[in-house]
C-alpha cells in the first residue's frame, strides 16, 4: 500500500474538515465501554496481561527456534512454509501458488498483512480476481478504499454509505429492495459472496497466531467467513508475519483470553478456528493444499532493539479505540495500513522515520493506549524513540528545531533565564492586566486560533518569592 504518512498534517486537516467522516467517528467508542465491563468481569485480567507479555517476550527472544519448529510441524502435517523477506517476495509466493493450481478467483478472509503487502492490487494486475469476504473488507474493496481500523475496516462508513455502495456496485439490485437495516446489508453481501465462496480456487486468510508446537494457524472472526474461505477452496494460503508465532496451544489460548476482550469486549470472538495442514484421509472437509507465507518485511531488524516490544502486538485495536487523536481523525489520516498508536510506532518502524515522523509526534503522550494495551506495549515510549530519531535526523521544521534549541540554551542558564523571563512576564502581565487574557498573540497563532491565552500574573514566582521571602532563600 502506498503510504501518505509523510503528509499527515494535511491528511489530518482534511479528516477534520470532512463532515461525513466526522459524523460517524464516534462508532468505535462503543467498544470501549464493552471492553471496560469485560475487564471488570475477569479478575485475573491484569495477571493475564503479564503472562501474555512474558510469552511473547520469550518467543521473540527465541524467534528463530520457534519459527523453525513451526515450519517442521507444518511440513509434517503436509503443508508448506514460504519464507519471505520482503513484500515483493510474499506477493510472488502467493501468485506462484495461485498459478500452480490455475486459479482465477481467490477469496480472502480479513488480513492486515495482505493489506501491508498490497496483495489485492497485485493479484488483479496478474489477472486474478481477489474477493474480500469479511463484510467490512468487502465493502471497502468495492469502494477501493483502505481499512480505517484494524478490526473494523469500514468503521468510517455509515449504513447509508454502505447502502449506496451496494446500489452502485451490485448491478441487478432492484431499487425498491430495502437496504436500510444492518440485517438487509448483511444479507445482500451474503448473497453476493455465497457464489464467490463456491467459485474460488484459492482461499487466503491471515493468522492471529501460528503455533510452533503443532504447526497450526489460528484465526479469530465474528462472521464465519474465514472458515468458508479456508475450507471450501482447494488451496488454503495463510499469509502471516513472523511475530505471530507462539510456542504452544496453551500460550495461544492465554493470549486469546485477552484478545476479544480488548478488541470488542466479547469474552471470545464468535469463531476461533485452528487449521493444521491440508485435509487428511477421512477428514470431512478441508483444502487439498496448505501453505503458510511467512513475512518478515523489516520486522527481524527490530529484534534485539528497544523496538522489539512492538512485535508483541496482537492487533486488537484497543489502543486506537482509546486514542483521542484516532477518534478525531479516523484511520485514513495516518496514511498507511496501521492507524492509531500502534501505527504511530509500526509505520516508522517498517517504512522509516523519514516517511512517518509525523505519526509519533502527533500525540499528547496521554498514555491511554499503553494503559489498555493487553500486551503491555509501552507505545508512548516507542513513539518517543522515533521523535528522538527524527530530531537527530533534523526532520522537524528548522524553525521549530531552532526555537527549541534556543529555549533550551536559555533554560540551561538559570540566571539568564530569570532575567529574560522576568522582563518578558512583566511586560505580558501589564499588557494583559485588563482582560486577563489575550485573543491574539504574536507567534502563538496555533494557540490563539482557537483559544484565548491566559495572561501571566505579571511577576514571576521566583521574583515574588525573592521579594517576600528573600531571607530564607537558598541558592
Amino acid at each position, binding site marked *: 500500500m502506498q503510504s501518505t504518512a509523510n503528509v499527515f*498534517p494535511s491528511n*489530518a486537516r482534511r479528516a*477534520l474538515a470532512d463532515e461525513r467522516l466526522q459524523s460517524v467517528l464516534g462508532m468505535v467508542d462503543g467498544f470501549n465501554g464493552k471492553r471496560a465491563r469485560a475487564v471488570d468481569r475477569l479478575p485475573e485480567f491484569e495477571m493475564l496481561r503479564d503472562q501474555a507479555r512474558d510469552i511473547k517476550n520469550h518467543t521473540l527472544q527465541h524467534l528463530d527456534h520457534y519459527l523453525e519448529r513451526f515450519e517442521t510441524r507444518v511440513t509434517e502435517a503436509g503443508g508448506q512454509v514460504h519464507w519471505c523477506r520482503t513484500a515483493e517476495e510474499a506477493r510472488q509466493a502467493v501468485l506462484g501458488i495461485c498459478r500452480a493450481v490455475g486459479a482465477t478467483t481467490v477469496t480472502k478472509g480479513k488480513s492486515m498483512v495482505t493489506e501491508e503487502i498490497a496483495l489485492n492490487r497485485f493479484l488483479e494486475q496478474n489477472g486474478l480476481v481477489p474477493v474480500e469476504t469479511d463484510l467490512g473488507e468487502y465493502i471497502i474493496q468495492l469502494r477501493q478504499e483502505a481499512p480505517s481500523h484494524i478490526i473494523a475496516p469500514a468503521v468510517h462508513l455509515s449504513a447509508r454509505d454502505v447502502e449506496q455502495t451496494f446500489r452502485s456496485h451490485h448491478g441487478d439490485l432492484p431499487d425498491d429492495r430495502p437496504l436500510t437495516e444492518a440485517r438487509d446489508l448483511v444479507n445482500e453481501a451474503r448473497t453476493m459472496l455465497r457464489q464467490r465462496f463456491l467459485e474460488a480456487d484459492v482461499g487466503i486468510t491471515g493468522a492471529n497466531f501460528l503455533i510452533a508446537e503443532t504447526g497450526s494457524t489460528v484465526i479469530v472472526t465474528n462472521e464465519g467467513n474465514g472458515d468458508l474461505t479456508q475450507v471450501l477452496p482447494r488451496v488454503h494460503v495463510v499469509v502471516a508475519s513472523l511475530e505471530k508465532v507462539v510456542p504452544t496451544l496453551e500460550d495461544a489460548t492465554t493470549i486469546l483470553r485477552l484478545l476479544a476482550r480488548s478488541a470488542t469486549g466479547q469474552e471470545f470472538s464468535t469463531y476461533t478456528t485452528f487449521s493444521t495442514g491440508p485435509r487428511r484421509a477421512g477428514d470431512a472437509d478441508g483444502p487439498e493444499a496448505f501453505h503458510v507465507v511467512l513475512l518478515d518485511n523489516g520486522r527481524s531488524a527490530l529484534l534485539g532493539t528497544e523496538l522489539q516490544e512492538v512485535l508483541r502486538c496482537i492487533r486488537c485495536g484497543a489502543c486506537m479505540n482509546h486514542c*483521542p*487523536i484516532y477518534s*478525531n*481523525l479516523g484511520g485514513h489520516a495516518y496514511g498507511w495500513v496501521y492507524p492509531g498508536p500502534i501505527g504511530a510506532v509500526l509505520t516508522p518502524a517498517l517504512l522509516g522515520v523519514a516517511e512517518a515522523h509525523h505519526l509519533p*509526534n*502527533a*500525540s*499528547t*503522550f*496521554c*498514555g*491511554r493506549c499503553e*494503559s489498555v494495551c493487553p500486551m503491555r506495549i509501552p507505545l508512548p515510549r516507542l513513539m*518517543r524513540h*522515533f*521523535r*528522538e530519531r*527524527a*530530531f*537527530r535526523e533534523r526532520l*522537524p521544521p528548522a524553525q*521549530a*528545531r531552532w526555537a*527549541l*534549541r534556543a*529555549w*533550551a540554551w536559555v*533554560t*540551561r542558564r*538559570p540566571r539568564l533565564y530569570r532575567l529574560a*523571563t522576568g522582563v518578558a*512576564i512583566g511586560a505580558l502581565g501589564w499588557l494583559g492586566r485588563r*482582560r*486577563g*487574557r489575550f*485573543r491574539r498573540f504574536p507567534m502563538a*497563532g*496555533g*494557540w490563539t*486560533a*482557537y*483559544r*484565548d*491565552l*491566559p*495572561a*501571566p*500574573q505579571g*511577576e*514571576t*514566582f*521566583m521574583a*515574588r*518569592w525573592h521579594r517576600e521571602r528573600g531571607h*530564607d532563600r*537558598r*541558592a
Partner: protein
Amino acid sequence: MTDRMGSATDAPKVGLFVTCLVDLFRPSVGFAAVRLLEAAGCRVEVPTVQTCCGQPAYNSGDRPDAVAIARNVIGAFETFDHVVVPSGSCAGMIKEHYPRLLADDADWAPRANHVARRCHELVSFLVDVRGWRPTRTRYDGRVTYHDSCSGLRELGIKAQPRYLLGDIDGVVLTEMADTEVCCGFGGTFCIKYPDISNRMVGDKVRAITTTGADTLLAGDLGCLLNLAGRLKRDGSPIRVRHVAEVLAGTCDDAPPIGEATNQPSGRP
C-alpha cells in the same frame, strides 16, 4: 488549616519545584503550594537555580538538552527530604523519566534515582505522605475535576484531590464524562497540531460544561491554561483554578485563570 508540626526541627525539608508554567504564568499556585506544605508540617525551600523540568525538549526528541536540564534539576534538589511539584506532568518527568534519561550514565543514574524516589506531586504528597487534611477552608462552588494524563496514568493520582476537596466546605463535586480522556494540551503538541488539539479541547470543554459546574479544577497548569483559554474564548463563565488554590483557601489572592477580576461569577 492545621499546622501539624509547625516549625519543629524534625519537620521534613521540602524542595519546591515550582514548574516553569507556575513560575511564569501563575505564581499564586506556587504560593498556595508553599502554604499547603507548611500547613502539612514541612519546611519549604525554593532552590533558585530551577527553571523547567525539560519536557519541551524531551517530548520533542531533543534528548541532549533534556539530559542537561535534568542534571540541573537533580543537582538543585538532591539534598532535600522530598521534592514536591504542583504538577503531575512535571512530577512524572522527574519521577519516571529522569531515571530513564540518565540510566546509562554511571555517575548520574544513582543521583537521578535518588531524586526520583523523593519526588511527589503536591496533592498526592499531602495525602499519601503527610496524611494532611484541610480544616475550616471554604470554597463555594459546583466543582468538576480534570485529571491530567500524567498524574492519572504515570502517578496514579485520582482519589487524592477528590478526597481533599471533600473536606472543603461549600464544594459540591460533579464528575464529567470521559474523565480519563486527554484535554489536548500535550505541551508543544497544541502548537504543532493546533487543529487536532482544538478538537480535543472542544470535546473536553463540552464534557465540562455538561456537568453544570461553575468551577473547573485540576492539578496541572498546562491543562488549565488550555481549558481556560478555550472556555474563555467560548465566553464561558466557568471559573478555572489550580486545585492548590482552593485547598489552600487562597482564591482571594488572584482572579481565576484567564480573568482580570475576582468576581464570584467569573464574568469579565
